[in-house]
C-alpha cells in the first residue's frame, strides 16, 4: 500500500498536467509508506516524450542524498500516460526496478483521469497492483 498526502498529490497532478501531451515524471519521498513530498523532475528522454520518460540517474542520486539528510526515503516514482490508461505497460515493465512503488497517472486531454500504483518484480516480468490512497 502507498498513501500520498494531499499537497504531494496535488503537486504530482499539476506537474504531469503541465507536461501534457508529453510524459511527466518525478520521485515521491516520505517515510513508512506515506508520501509526504513530491519532487517533479525533468523527463530526460532525448527521443519523443509523448510515450516515454527517463529520470536522469544524477537527479535520482541527488534527491536520494538530500532526502537521507532530512531523514526521509525515496519511496517511489511517478509518471504519466498521456491520453492512455494507467496500466503498467510493457515498456514500464522492461525498465522497472523492484525497489520502488510506481504510480502511473492517466492524463486524458490534459486533465487527470485516474491513477494506479504497481510494485514490479525482480525479473521485470510482472508488476502487481498495490493499493493507492491519495488526497
Amino acid at each position, binding site marked *: 500500500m502507498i498513501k500520498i498526502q494531499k499537497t504531494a498529490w496535488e503537486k504530482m497532478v499539476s506537474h504531469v498536467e503541465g507536461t501534457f501531451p508529453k*510524459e511527466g*515524471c518525478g520521485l515521491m519521498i516520505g517515510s513508512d509508506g506515506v508520501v509526504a513530498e513530491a519532487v517533479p523532475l525533468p523527463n530526460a*528522454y532525448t527521443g519523443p516524450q509523448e*510515450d*516515454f*520518460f*527517463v*529520470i536522469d*540517474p*544524477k537527479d*535520482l*542520486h541527488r534527491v*536520494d*542524498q538530500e*532526502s*537521507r539528510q532530512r531523514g526521509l*526515503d*525515496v519511496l517511489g*516514482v511517478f*509518471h504519466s*500516460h*498521456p*491520453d*492512455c*490508461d494507467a*496500466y503498467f*505497460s*510493457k*515498456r*514500464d*515493465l*522492461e*525498465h*522497472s*526496478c*523492484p*525497489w*520502488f512503488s*510506481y504510480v502511473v497517472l492517466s492524463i*486524458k486531454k490534459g486533465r487527470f483521469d485516474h491513477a494506479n500504483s504497481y510494485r514490479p518484480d*525482480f*525479473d*521485470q*516480468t*510482472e508488476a502487481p497492483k498495490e493499493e493507492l490512497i491519495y488526497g
Partner: protein
Amino acid sequence: MAKILIPTPLRQFADKKDSVQLPGSTVGEVLKSLTGQYSELRRHLYNDEGKLRSFVNVYVNDEDIRYLNKEATPLTDGDTVSIVPSIAGGSAGVAAPPAPPATLSKDEILRYSRHLIMPEVGMEGQLKLKAAKVALIGTGGLGAPLGMYLAAAGIGRIGLVDFDVVDFTNLQRQVIHGTKDVGKKKLDSAAETMLDINPYVEIDRHEVALTSENALDILKDYDIVVDGTDNFPTRYLVNDACVLLKKPNVYGSIFRFEGQATIFAYPGGPCYRCLYPEPPPPGLVPSCAEGGVLGILPGTVGLIQATETVKLILGIGEPLIGRLVLYDALAMRFRELKLRRNPECPVCGDHPTITKLIDYQEFCGIPTQTHEEKPMDGDIEPTEVKAKIDRGDRFVLIDVREPHEYQICNIPQAKLIPLGDLPKRVNELNSADEIIAHCKSGMRSAKAVDFLKQAGFKKVRNMKGGILAWSDKVDPSVPKY
C-alpha cells in the same frame, strides 16, 4: 577501500546502514565484498547468471561505470561508489498502427456513432481501429463471432485464413455461416457476412492451411494475430510465428462447456509454450469433433478475444497479458490464473533454441499422411462388416461410443460398451469369439482393439471410419453427427 552508498530501499538488507566502507581495488571487487557481507543484497543487484541486473546503475563519484571500465573500473581510496537504479518507462502504444487515416466519411461517422460518443474511443480511437490490421486464423467456432464483431467494430483490414468448406455440423455454433452456405468455402461465406455487416472493412482471403512455410509471410503484414484454431499443431505454429514476428497472439480455446482466453507473445509477456511447453500425446485431448462443444461457448470465448483485440488497438483498459481467463459455462464462473514468461522458454525465453518455425505435425506426434494411408493391421471395411452380418457369420460387434451417442444412431447388431467401461466389462466378451469394434470415426475403437489385444484377445478388428463410414458406404439412413 571505497565508500559504498546504499540506496534507501536496500538499507533494510544492510543492517539499516546508509553507507559502508569496503575493501576492493575495482568496482566489481567492492560489490563482491558488499554482497559477501550482506548476502540478501545479491539477488537485488545480480541476476541468476551473476550479471548486474538491468535496472542497476553503478556510479564512481559522478561517473557511470558503463562509460568507464564497467565492473573493472579501478578505485582509489576516498572514492565513493553509488548504486542508483535506472528509472524509465512509458505508455508505448500497443501495436501502434501507422499514421491513422485523417478522417471518417459522413456515413462512417453515423455507423460508429455509439463508439464516437464514448471518450475512451472517440474519433481518435475509431481512426485507430480503421488503421488496424488484424489476422484471424480460422473462421469456425471462435472465428465466427470474432469476424462479425471485429468487422462491425470497424477494424480497417481483416485477413482471414481458412481452407475449409461449410458443412451442416458447423451451423450449431459458427453463426457467421448460414444454412444457405453449406458447401461453400468458409472464406467466402464469412467474408460475405462481414461485408454485409460492414462494407467499409477490407478483407484479405488467405485460402490456405497455415504452415511453417507460409505463416511468417502471411502474418507479417498484420498488427495483431487472433487464434481461432482448434488443433495443437496450428496453435504452436501461430504462437511461434507471433513470437518471432513480435506480434501479440490473442488466444482462445474451447472444449465442451469450458473455455480459456489470454494474450500470448506480447513482448515481455508469456507465450503459449510458457504455459504448455509440450503438446499432449496425440488423441489424449479430444477435439470438439470428438468431445463435442456447447454451441454458444465459442461465442463467449470468441468475444473475449474480440474485446481484447479492440482494447489492444485502442490502448485502453488492462490488457489480458499474463492472465489466463478460465470460463466454466455450467457453473457460470470466470476464474483467472497468473501466467509468467518462462525465462527458459525455448522460443520466447532469454536464450531461445527455436529461432525459426519447425515441423509442428511432427512436434505434436501426428503421423504424416503417408502413414495414415497404409492400411492398419486388423482394420475391416464397413461393407465387409455388413456382408458378414448378411451372411449370418458368427462374430460380436461392439460399439465403444458413449450411450448418448448410441441414442443418436447405432447399428442394431452392435453391443454398447463405452471405451471407458471396457476394462471392467471385458468379462462380458469371450476371447474365442471374433470381435469387431466400432466408434464414431475409428479413433476410439482403435484404442479398444489395442486394449483387447493386450488383454489376450486374438481375433479383434477395428471397423475403419466408424459409424460415419457406415453411413457413407452401407446405410445412408444412419444420421451423421
